């Protein structure tokens, strides 16, 4: 991190030119710890320095939002729950200078914000000789089954085993990773990466897998269908375990083809998740936000 950027434990007035805060849809649950932290910090910095909020999530959180929306008089549907979340987030972030989101779809879903897709350094991700295995790295914790596509994931795993005889690995659950080097070695040696997420905007684990030359099989949501060309630099699967399992198994049993597609995926990742572009977009935004406030 540059010298003039610092993580700070608490805000001291007059010492900083800009605050960058983190938020996601869980912050709409008032009693949740991270929600409290965000609200407290934002109330302290609001009006004192320009504020950019990075919103890591989307309004997809039906397990909680349907009920909360209903209590506020909304219909009992996922769409209504998302609308409720949109309104609540807007209110929560009232007064921020910009909300940065991770995908164009997330921007559309929230109805505002600026998309800055993450950037990675290609040299930090290793395209190693591939083991014919399929891996996934999604959060096992808490609610968010639709957000992470956990049901699709577990059904696909069962089908892979029963129909194709293929065991799959869930990083963090089936595989213990010691440190970052261990992680990028493991991912770099994995032939196929399966991303089942539905609501998660631009999962970084998928980008890391693409950068590592894994053949990615992914759901098409949150912009994935704009940069994955099915069968060229990865695979798009429906929210359907039969489709996902078939595409994964096809690649496990077509090693050379999977290698070829994985290499194409890495080329895409180098272009799309470009570190320079990422840094430039952030500098432009910071410059815009800070100069606006000076004027």
């Amino acid at each position: 991190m540059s010298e003039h950027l610092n993580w700070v434990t608490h805000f001291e007035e007059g010492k900083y030119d800009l605050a960058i805060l983190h938020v996601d849809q869980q912050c709409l649950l008032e009693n949740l710890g991270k929600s409290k932290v965000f609200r407290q910090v934002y109330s302290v910095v609001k009006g004192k320095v320009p504020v950019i909020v990075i919103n890591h999530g989307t309004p997809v959180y039906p397990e909680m939002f349907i009920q909360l929306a209903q209590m506020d008089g909304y219909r009992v549907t996922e769409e209504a729950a998302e609308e409720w979340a949109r309104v609540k987030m807007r209110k929560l972030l009232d007064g921020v200078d910009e909300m940065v989101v991770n995908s164009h779809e997330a921007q559309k879903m929230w109805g505002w914000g600026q998309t800055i897709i993450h950037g990675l350094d290609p040299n930090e991700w290793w395209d190693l000789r591939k083991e014919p295995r399929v891996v996934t790295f999604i959060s096992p914790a808490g609610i968010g089954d639709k957000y992470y596509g956990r049901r699709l994931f577990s059904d696909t795993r069962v089908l892979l085993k029963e129909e194709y005889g293929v065991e799959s690995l869930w990083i963090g659950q089936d595989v213990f990773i010691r440190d970052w080097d261990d992680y990028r070695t493991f991912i770099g040696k994995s032939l196929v990466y399966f991303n089942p997420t539905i609501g998660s905007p631009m999962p970084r684990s998928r980008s890391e897998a693409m950068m590592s030359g894994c053949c990615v099989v992914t759901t098409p949501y949150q912009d994935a269908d704009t940069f994955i060309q099915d069968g060229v630099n990865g695979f798009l699967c429906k929210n359907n375990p039969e489709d996902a399992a078939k595409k994964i198994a096809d690649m496990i049993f077509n090693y050379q083809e999977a290698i070829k597609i994985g290499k194409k995926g890495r080329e895409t990742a180098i272009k799309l998740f470009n570190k320079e572009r990422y840094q430039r977009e952030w500098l432009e935004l910071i410059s815009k936000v800070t100069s606006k406030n000076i004027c």
Partner: protein
Amino acid sequence: MLEEKLKGAILLFEDWHSKKYIGSSRIRGHWLIKNWDKVLPYNSTLESFVQGQKYDFVIFQKTYWLDFVKKFEGIKILDFCDVDWLDTVPVIEIIDNCDAVTTSTEALRDEIKKFTDKPVVCIPDRQDLEFHNLKKKHEGRAKMVVWFGYSHNSKVLDKTILFLKKYNLKLKVISDVRPPYMKADKNVKYDWGNPEFDFNKEVLEGDMVLMPENTRARGRFKSNNKTLTAWCLGMPVATTPDELVKFLDPEERKKEAELRLKEVKEKWSVELSVKDFKNLIEQLKNDKRRR
């Protein structure tokens, strides 16, 4: 000048994993060692791997000891009888560090060829004709069919149950019975360590062996070693309903048993596998010399 004999070893799956009486180690390990000196050329020896010994070649029977493979400078052969990578076992690095790969089936060979340019040779599971040394005497209409194997594979029997009832045939299952096959009339547990347990006699209590086609996901990679075992014992193997009906007749069973026993002696003797391994080692030795 006389060339010194190559000293070789086979690292058995059952030793490496502290298990006993593993079928693949018997077929692809012990039987090779037992028959090694019976087959030309006599320019090498083979023993079960002993730590600390110096070897000219090592066969890794379904054992993935990467650290040793990386350091060992002799001839290294990695022997597969299962699609272990589908169980997430890392195999690529060890294949890259071996000189050749052997497989128990052609389907396995074809799959592994996708990963490597090294020699991949199918050396099928074959039989030590002295091991299954009893022979079935076929008399009267068949009354009982036998299936044997690991119990997790016994699901293949489900589709045969109604048919067996229709022809009034009892089903005997010989397996590790974890769990027992509940639809069988008789479950017998493998008990290789017990001198009272006689696998051959257990099989011969039936009139034929039932071996329905394994349509499960990994079925195509499986070898025919159970069929060969049955044939060694003079037991016909029914794989389809038509064959099962045909083998109700004792004369048909006798005819089939004689035919298959002849086939086993000609094509499926483990001595042929010894020959295959010796040829491969010779080829690898010459390749190393040329390099």
